[in-house]
């Protein structure tokens, strides 16, 4: 009998600070509309930094924490291999190009915001971005459709934030413990 699965014993590539930066730089450059699938491809398949199991484990941690999954992931991977310089190289690599691009678009937008054609263009773009967000919300909420407790929490969250426009901090401090408490009671 094999004592340990091969994935956990295989020695993977250990990137240095420069490789961490370039790896995440390329990711930031290419990741349109969701970086996560590309991140897995880069770290597991292409560059062999992590095993598939290690990637899933780190992702689990990052989903559990505040902040964007992929941003947290870059910090975690950088730290894991090269400590704090590695973490800085990874996150800076990841956000360098997107920040520059987004500011460039912002400059264009503010320059031509009063032109009716540009206004219409951005009106359509903004509406489409809203449509994408609706779709994301549906996909996240769909698995909960037969879960009465889950739907109760979803409804309370929507009421507090979208309808009553309550601040996020007290909403989160109420809803998260309530939801976890309900799960714990359900489990026991």
């Amino acid at each position, binding site marked *: 009998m094999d004592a340990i699965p091969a994935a956990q014993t295989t020695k993977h590539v250990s990137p240095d600070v420069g490789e961490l930066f370039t790896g995440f730089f390329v990711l930031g*450059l290419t*990741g349109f*509309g969701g970086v996560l699938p590309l991140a897995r491809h880069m770290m597991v398949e292409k560059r062999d930094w992590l095993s598939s199991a290690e990637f899933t484990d780190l992702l689990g941690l*990052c*989903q559990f924490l*505040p*902040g*964007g*999954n*992929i*941003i*947290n992931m870059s*910090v*975690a991977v950088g*730290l*894991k291999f090269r400590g704090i310089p590695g*973490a800085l190289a990874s*996150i800076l690599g*990841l956000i360098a190009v997107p920040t520059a*691009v*987004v*500011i460039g*678009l*912002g400059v264009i*937008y503010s320059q031509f915001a009063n032109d*009716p054609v540009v*206004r*219409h263009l*951005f*009106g*359509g*773009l*903004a*509406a*489409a*971005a*809203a*449509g*994408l*967000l*609706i*779709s994301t*919300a*549906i996909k*996240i909420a769909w698995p*909960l459709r037969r879960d009465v407790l889950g*739907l109760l*929490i*979803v*409804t309370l*969250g*929507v009421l507090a934030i*979208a309808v009553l426009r309550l*601040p*996020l901090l007290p909403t*989160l401090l109420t809803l998260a413990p309530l*939801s*976890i*408490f*309900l799960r714990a009671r359900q489990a026991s």
Partner: protein
Amino acid sequence: MTATLVTLALIFAELSLLAFGGGNTILPEMQRQVVDIHHWMSAQEFGALFALAQAAPGPNMMVVPLVGWHVAGFSGVLVTSLAKFGPSSLVTGFALQLWERFKDRPWRKTVQAGLVPVTAGLVTASAIVITHASASSWGTILIAAGVAIATTTTRIHPLLALAAGAVLGLTGIGQP
């Protein structure tokens, strides 16, 4: 100016630590702060900045430096980026060290399961708030609805959907 930068830093540092379930959950609070409380921009402008950030490559929180730039130029970019990505990164660093110890504890699964509907509620609220700001004419409502249906029911690339929305918007049909 310094007062504005300090305010930006405080807002985004708080958002950084509250962003459970990713960046989309904090959009309504971000909008509430920069539009309703500090009046740095209108809800429509916030919607436009969010759209720009969605059209750019990279992680989906690029609206953060954009808001910083809009409010306070390049120092705003620096301050909002540091404030948004710094605190959550520190938490990640500390959590990474504890992670191995708690990996197999049953309470971890319970907490994770409990956070799922909270995230779902916050993202749904984000969708409502952003749609309310960005789809105000019948033309833009149709675009938002069309994109929502297309990206939910098919595997169309999000960037293609955004491009289609921009082209439809360009015609000016149904927009003031």
